């Protein structure tokens, strides 16, 4: 789903910039969109039971016009851009996977281990089973290191 949204968004920026060049206007700058939360987990196609509501959390450096178009494309795909998604806490070490590289839009997915740390730290009750399942699937070493660093009590998730 997200791949189509980003492809369409990139095409839209491309068309918009062609028109702007012809009209002698400033072009829309290249932008980066970093997808967080459940949406990134779903797109990563992990072997976990992930349920996601329709809101999409992102960190992005896009211009207002691109944000508006992104919202429209998400709505058409049955999703909503979370207006406070950019306030979501992620560990400062968070690494991202390349997801879509267009001429104008680049999209990345936060790596699962960092999303899990964010969830375990900020909403442990809501994500109790998701984190248990992630640990049960053989969580990576990095996840355990970060849990220690951010003082997350992993034992409380496996009770």
């Amino acid at each position, binding site marked *: 789903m997200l791949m189509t949204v980003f492809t369409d968004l990139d095409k839209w920026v491309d068309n918009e910039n062609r028109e702007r060049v012809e009209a002698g206007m400033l072009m829309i700058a290249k932008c980066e969109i970093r997808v967080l939360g459940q949406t990134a987990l*779903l797109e990563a196609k992990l072997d976990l039971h992930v*349920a*996601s509501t329709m809101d999409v959390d992102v960190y992005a450096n896009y211009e207002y016009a691109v944000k508006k178009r992104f919202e429209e494309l998400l709505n058409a795909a049955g999703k*909503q851009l979370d207006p406070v998604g950019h306030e979501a806490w992620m560990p400062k070490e968070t690494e991202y996977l390349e997801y879509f590289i267009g001429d104008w839009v680049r999209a990345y997915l936060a790596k699962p281990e960092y999303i899990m740390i964010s969830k375990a730290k900020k909403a442990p009750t809501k994500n109790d089973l998701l984190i248990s399942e992630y640990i049960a699937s053989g969580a990576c070493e990095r996840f355990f290191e970060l849990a220690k660093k951010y003082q997350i009590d992993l034992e409380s998730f496996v009770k």
Partner: protein
Amino acid sequence: MTNQELIKKAQKKMIRIKKQRRDLRYIKTLGKLRREGLLDVRDVAEYRCHVFLNEALWAAKLEPRILELLPALLARRPKVFVCLDVPQELELVVRELRVGRAKTPYQGIPAQNYERWMDLVGHNKLRPKIMRSFRLSTAAIAILETLAKNQNTSQSAIIQQALSALVRD
């Protein structure tokens, strides 16, 4: 506890949870919410028939996101679930949501967390408008009527425009 012990313990827990996830109440609720476009779940098929509210409440123990959606869903789309008996706590928050005064936490979920779904769960993305009554001076009413007539719109629309302008300032 070492990492390996944690993994083993989590695996034991997940055996129990996976069994519970095979329960029809869980599959039906998630399938229904998926069909309504409210939850994205890859490994559950869409479900189109009736789901009872108590089944959804049971399923919410395994997927807390259902609990977050329920108040707004009952306020805006009460027919998604068959509601024979609505728990008092849920009824209270739904009533608050309908009049735009959500303040009571629901099952530990703060009001602002479940209230935000009001804009998203309805077929019509606009929230229902809320009735309010005010006492205005005769002069204010005359201004309101003139503005509404001149702009060929309703008096409520004029008040909303004025409020938006105030917020912008």
